[in-house]
């Protein structure tokens, strides 16, 4: 418990508190009156209103589109299912800079909808909502589908034998069992869309702003720390409330359900209805997820004089077409992998210990800590980044120019995933096994190695994979942190997109495609080693 608490306090709570405090204090006196002042501003109210309703609408739309998908992935068996499940998770870990571009290509001018029906959705709220579905589809499919695939179908069948109609049986048996998972997924989607940044910036155009975008603007552009501090507190309160409800639904879900091996519940589709559903879901995935990703790949190959690997080749040399990057773009991949490895290690240690502590101990305080560990997911990267700058500035902790700051920031985002993945598995380890080993003369280390490790190893790998993928794609915090000249992959993509010229644009697309493939591969690997109860992601 001590390690995760210390980590969380030092690298999250303290920096964030310091930057908020800087905004709310004037001449050493707290200015809580500012909260009222800021909240009374009509432009801020507009932002709050928009943030709330777009998150609600996004969540509803995501559930509507993704729940059939959850069913299909859980209950139907079809070729390529594992691959597809890995692919639908790719958007979740891709940086929004990249995806925004791909999405614009579909919804904007000359996009798919435009060519077919002359409909353009860029700079409308529809583009934002659809992109949110794109990003969060996997959250629903994995959270709800994961549980759905383990519910014993015989319970529903029993109800039908007893005379219940198909719908009534589903409503009375499956729905109640599923409800907490649906609620948990909805809350996660709400959390991610409530704090949406890149999607809103790129697809919404200047007319739309969420709380997160406004915090960024007030902090990074205007240096209006008081306003930013108030907004951060508002976001904190909202995210805290969401997490509290989420923790509650998770607890309810963990009350014993009779779970079975997912291998046994999935079947080949039967009947016109199931085939139609499968076709519908596959079409949705194709249009909503594969197409935008495909656009990226296509553009990365669209070299002058026909399709080819020109842009990929150019990535290898530091002085492609005139020589302006200090490092070869390919080096950015290696940087990213190194950072992500360190971040994964940190996230595993901190998250693993936290999960272990949460398993062994109960009580309100510990449960509160569980929710607290999720908080970094809902706090603006610029707040954390600027907080680092003003707190970690004295020896021995003058880390501001150290490379370690990047993996530390990335680990903050990785820890919640590790905790969420490990917790259910750790809770399932039967303590009596360990006691039996001890009785038989095993040392604690040996008991841990022989009993705990084999049981949690797979969960540990899954957690590591997620933390790795998330760290690889992390952009928000990384971009604010000054570092020796070692850009990460997403940062390199953003820098290239920030320049004119065909080669820069093509290389940005090629690098994005590489990032996408690396993410997809690590997720596919996860699919292979999935545990029976691999948490909710």
């Amino acid at each position, binding site marked *: 418990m001590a390690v995760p608490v210390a980590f969380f306090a030092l690298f999250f709570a303290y920096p964030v508190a310091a930057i908020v405090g800087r905004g709310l204090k004037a001449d050493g006196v707290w200015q809580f009156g500012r909260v009222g002042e800021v909240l009374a501003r009509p432009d801020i109210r507009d932002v709050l209103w928009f943030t709330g309703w777009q998150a609600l609408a996004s969540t509803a739309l995501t559930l509507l589109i993704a729940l059939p998908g959850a069913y299909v992935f859980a209950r139907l068996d079809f070729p390529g299912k594992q691959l597809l499940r890995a692919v639908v998770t790719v958007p979740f870990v891709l940086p929004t800079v990249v995806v925004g571009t791909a999405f614009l290509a579909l919804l904007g001018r*000359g996009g798919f909808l435009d060519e077919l029906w002359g409909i353009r959705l860029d700079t409308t709220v529809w583009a934002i909502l659809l992109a949110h579905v794109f990003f969060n589809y996997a959250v629903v499919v994995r959270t709800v589908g994961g549980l759905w695939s383990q519910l014993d179908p015989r319970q529903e069948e029993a109800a039908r034998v007893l005379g219940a109609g198909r719908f009534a049986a589903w409503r009375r048996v499956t729905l109640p069992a599923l409800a907490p998972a649906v609620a948990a997924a909805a809350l996660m989607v709400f959390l991610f869309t409530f704090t949406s940044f890149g999607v809103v910036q790129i697809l919404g155009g200047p007319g739309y702003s969420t709380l997160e975008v406004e915090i960024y603007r007030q902090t990074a552009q205007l*240096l209006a720390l008081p306003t930013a501090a108030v907004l951060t507190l508002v976001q904190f309160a909202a995210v805290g409330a969401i997490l509290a409800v989420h923790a509650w639904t998770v607890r309810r879900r963990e009350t014993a359900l009779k779970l079975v091996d997912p291998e046994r519940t999935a079947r080949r589709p039967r009947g016109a209805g199931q085939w139609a559903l499968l076709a519908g879901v596959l079409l949705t995935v194709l249009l909503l997820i594969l197409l935008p990703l495909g656009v990226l790949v296509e553009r990365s190959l669209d070299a002058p004089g026909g399709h080819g690997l020109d842009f990929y080749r150019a990535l290898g040399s530091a002085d492609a077409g005139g020589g302006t990057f200090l490092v070869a773009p390919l080096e950015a991949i290696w940087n990213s992998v190194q950072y992500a490895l360190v971040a994964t*290690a940190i996230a*595993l240690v901190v998250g693993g210990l936290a999960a272990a502590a949460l398993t062994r101990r109960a009580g309100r305080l510990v449960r509160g800590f569980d929710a607290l560990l999720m908080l970094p997911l809902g706090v603006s990267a610029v707040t954390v980044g600027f907080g680092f700058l003003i707190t970690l500035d004295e020896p021995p902790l003058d880390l501001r120019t150290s490379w370690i700051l990047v993996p530390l920031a990335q680990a903050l985002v990785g820890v919640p995933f590790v905790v969420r993945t490990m917790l259910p598995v750790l809770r399932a380890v039967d*303590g009596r096994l360990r006691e039996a080993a001890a009785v038989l003369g095993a040392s604690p280390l040996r008991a*841990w190695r022989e009993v*705990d490790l084999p049981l949690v190893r797979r969960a540990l790998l899954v957690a590591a994979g997620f933390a790795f993928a998330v760290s690889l794609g992390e952009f928000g915090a990384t971009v604010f942190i000054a570092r020796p000249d070692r850009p990460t992959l997403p940062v390199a993509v953003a820098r290239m*997109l920030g320049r004119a*010229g065909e080669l820069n*644009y093509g290389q940005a697309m090629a690098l994005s495609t590489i990032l996408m493939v690396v993410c997809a591969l690590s997720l596919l690997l996860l699919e292979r080693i999935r545990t029976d109860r691999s948490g909710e992601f």
Partner: protein
Amino acid sequence: MSTTHRTGRLAAAAAAAALGVTALAGCGSSDDQASDGSKGSGSKTVTLVSHDSFNASEAVLKEFTKETGYTVKVLKSGDAGVALNQEILTKGSPRGDVFFGVDNTLLSRALDSGLFTPYEAKGLDRVAEATRLDAEHRVTPVDTGDICVNYDKKYFADKKLAPPSTFADLAKPAYKDLLVTENAATSSPGLGFLLGTVAAYGEKGYQDYWKKLEKNGVKVVDGWEEAYNEEFSGSAGGKKAKADRPLVVSYASSPPVEVLYAKQPPAEAPTGVATGTCFRQIEFAGLLDGAKNEAGGKALLDFLISKKFQEDMPLNMFVNPVVEDAELPEVFTKFGATVEKPETVAPDSIAKNREQWVQSWSSLVVK
């Protein structure tokens, strides 16, 4: 009791694993050791803090080391505004010795916050008079760049229409629905273009001008990347995205960049510059207050306005030198535009009115 014991073992094993990886990653970065060395006095490392667009060729940085004995370490953090704000936040305990990248739109904010220690760089007399905006030498001008409307040459040739050349042209019916610009509240070219119109039409007239532009179908997007790569039909990205706006707010140096970064360099730049729509940005560097290596910082400032660095700069950052004896590379003189009369606004006037200008601009064109 026994359970906590086991958790402790788990911790030890995991921590050991983490340290292993950490050490491994540490091996890959030799410059980290240098950074640790820079803490002491009389250090041979000088740290330059800048924005993401900073670039210098390795050869010229080596030249600096050869001349002075100092090695330059570069820290980049975010875009120009973000990088400056981070410096202001860490004032007194800076991450480096010299900050490069504060421009005239942000200069007053930097000077008012007391970020810099005055130092008159050697060779300042060779620097163009018009760029020396601080008489106390807290900052040293390093480069200039012009924010101008770019046009897609092919579009105007196909339509047999003369491309616009002035602000007034942009509001004419012939150019209806052709221009895309950036959000002045969040993007520096967007702000530069707005300031250009303020300079051209005055503090009263600029609003009327923007009303006309609005009627003429100007499109506003959030950042330069979207405007240039997604909306502008003259860029490589825009062509792939089937963009339909042949006019975009970008830089006077964008056409040379298009040539330089083309896979097969064309004989002529695909884009041109409307030279009557330009706002001049001047970028400055300064010695940070509290710098650990003051001597090295001063040497670096001298170097930034040396002929060598100034001539290296255009192809690395796509900006113009400020010293009068520096020669521009051929790709600039051949494909770039000469801006005779760029618009400018005094830094303190920008500091005073910026928020209000941006706000009234927003209410006119952002809905």
